[in-house]
């Protein structure tokens, strides 16, 4: 190949964008052509000059870093507030359903209206709430949420922002020694309080761990007590689901899954 053919290839050659067979041809030509060698050196020199000239403008100042960190933090806060606000709107809708439902006739009317006007998931939720308020049973509520709640946040680092709503520190137990995989979290109403619902998957089983303020929500007296090692845990079955509960320093933990009671007891005990 002569200079005429090689010159258009020199830049892709320098940029590492030439196909291997072309690279060989260019290298062969470069061995015997001093002019093309000079062109290549020129390209390299230009690149080095550019890099060196631009290096100083790439150095972020401490002041800029600080300003940026503040802006990122503020943006994160806004993003989070928007999400909390959306959740609160959602919840206030749910609570208004709760007060309407006992008035049977009105509730029936409203449900018909909701089913015809609202999105399909609303009528499903209304039906679930109806069920929950009819039996007014905490265990029933736990099973219902386990069956229907979907994670709203998938990042465990956002859990601390649940603290205020739940009233106790919300942290995701790791449970990796049981092969449990974290999926995400949401806030759910529990016995007129708010609980964090943490979703896991254990060996193909869906599992929900509820974190709540144990001074306001009591599960212990509704479930048989048993000991795992020295730890007292409360385990029972409702509608085919195994439910376990325990309390540690004011934080209540409840677990719902289709595991057996012995497995539930062990998992709940590990939350201590």
């Amino acid at each position: 190949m002569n200079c005429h053919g090689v010159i258009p290839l020199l830049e892709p050659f320098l940029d590492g964008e030439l196909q291997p067979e072309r690279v060989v041809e260019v290298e062969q030509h470069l061995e015997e052509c001093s002019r093309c060698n000079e062109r290549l050196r020129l390209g390299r020199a230009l690149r080095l000059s550019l890099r060196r000239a631009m290096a100083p403008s790439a150095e972020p100042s401490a002041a800029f870093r600080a300003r940026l960190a503040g802006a990122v933090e503020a943006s994160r806060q806004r993003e989070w507030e928007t999400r909390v606000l959306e959740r609160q709107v959602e919840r206030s809708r749910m609570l208004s359903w709760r007060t309407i439902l006992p008035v049977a006739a009105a509730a029936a009317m409203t449900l018909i209206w909701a089913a015809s006007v609202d999105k399909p998931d609303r009528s499903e939720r209304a039906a679930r709430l109806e069920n929950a308020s009819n039996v007014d049973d905490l265990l029933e509520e736990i099973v219902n949420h386990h069956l229907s709640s979907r994670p709203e946040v998938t990042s465990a680092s956002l859990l601390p922002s649940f603290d205020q709503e739940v009233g106790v520190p919300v942290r995701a137990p790791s449970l990796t020694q049981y092969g449990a995989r974290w999926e995400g979290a949401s806030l759910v109403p529990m016995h007129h309080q708010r609980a964090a619902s943490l979703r896991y998957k254990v060996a193909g089983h869906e599992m929900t761990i509820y974190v709540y303020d144990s001074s306001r929500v009591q599960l212990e007296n509704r479930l048989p007590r048993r000991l795992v090692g020295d730890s007292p845990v409360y385990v029972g079955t409702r509608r085919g689901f195994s439910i376990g509960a325990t309390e540690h320093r004011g934080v209540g933990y409840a677990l719902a899954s289709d595991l057996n009671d012995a497995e539930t007891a062990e998992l709940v005990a590990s939350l201590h």
Partner: protein
Amino acid sequence: MAPQRLSSRQFEEEVLQHLPSMLSVASRLMKNGSEAEDLVQDSVLKAIRARDKFETGTNLRAWLLKILTNTFINRYRRGGLERSVLDGPDADPLADGWVSASTMEALRDPESQALRPILEAEIGRALEELPTEFRLAVVLSDVEDLSYKEISDVMGCPVGTVMSRLHRGRRMLKSKLYEHARALGIVGPEAAVGELPSHESVVEIDQYRQKRGARS
């Protein structure tokens, strides 16, 4: 947590690692340092909000530079990057700016260290004089080491256009640099023969030199 999915904090940290690249490119698009910082800040915030759109396993730096370029275009260039008349087919693909490598190397490694800041300022100025889309292509390739494909994605143009912008950008840069260096007296006229007249191709350079030699 879903596998391979970074938490938002981890993602923020990764984004901030590419701050130097973003600043470096922004400083070639904006007139002054504080405008460049504003552009970087807006781009960082956009990137963090759009983190779900980033495909894990692809080049995060290229993705960030694309956001930065789009932010720049949306804010300052509503009509997109200017389509220079030079962006059409190259009339004369072989005519390249002829500055000898020894001249470039003199510019790169001046014997007098005192000249260095002056030369670096000259390179910066030569770069500033390039049309934006040529300047951006050259910086993304020569300084940021992006591939042609990545540059085409950042600039929203075909790979062929990237190659042509790079070629012409570099060619202009070489000749501008030579003019600057000569005006400053850093290189003498004998070190280079300047830009070739466009009707003459590079393969005829020896002939061209001989002609010039014969005339002088």
